[in-house]
């Protein structure tokens, strides 16, 4: 069973389009994240949700909008795609609380904007 699953794994689209990436975790975790990994492999946190509530919202363009319908799902919608949005987007989850441990990552979704 896949613990954190993302769809699609690969996405190629044109500039100006709108696209979504979906994420689901079956670990029973309360907290979910979106990270962006650029071409230089740098991992930057974008958003974090705890039990459907937004708790981390980094400096990300308004074109990016996360949505968490329940604590097991965290989707990422991107409007008006730009070339610079090309990257690998990782979803992750972890238990909530100070004494928390590792993040469990999905396999990543590679977005290519042409």
């Amino acid at each position, binding site marked *: 069973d896949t613990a954190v699953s993302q769809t699609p794994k690969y996405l190629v689209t044109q500039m100006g389009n709108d696209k979504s990436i979906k994420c689901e975790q079956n670990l029973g975790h309360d*907290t979910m*994240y979106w*990270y962006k990994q650029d071409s*230089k*492999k*740098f*991992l*930057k*946190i974008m958003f*974090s949700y*705890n039990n459907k509530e937004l*708790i*981390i919202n980094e400096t990300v363009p308004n074109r990016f909008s996360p949505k968490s319908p329940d604590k097991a799902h965290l989707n990422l919608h991107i409007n008006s795609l730009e070339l610079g949005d090309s990257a*690998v987007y*990782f979803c*992750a989850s*972890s238990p*909530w*609380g*100070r004494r*928390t*441990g*590792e*993040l469990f*990552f999905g*396999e*990543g979704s590679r977005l290519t904007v042409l």
Partner: protein
Amino acid sequence: AQTVTQSQPEMSVQEAETVTLSCTYDTSESNYYLFWYKQPPSRQMILVIRQEAYKQQNATENRFSVNFQKAAKSFSLKISDSQLGDTAMYFCATKNNNDMRFGAGTRLTVKP
């Protein structure tokens, strides 16, 4: 927010040798966690080892061990008996209050 610095963009090591990857961090929190993740070409993020900041004893996981110097805010990873399968990007990370931040990564190549 905390910051993480990995000063070695690339490193290489001969198979069966030992290599140490450096990491320094900065945080204002007293209770935090430190991690090393590995990302092979498959791009899956794999936890290598973790350290709780309040524990003085250095963590060890088989061939992987850390040198945690809390006062110096240093958290280096030592890989012993390097194997070809250790070739990957290695990321150091700090986590507190459910906020995990990563360093820029070190690309490690194990040569036969």
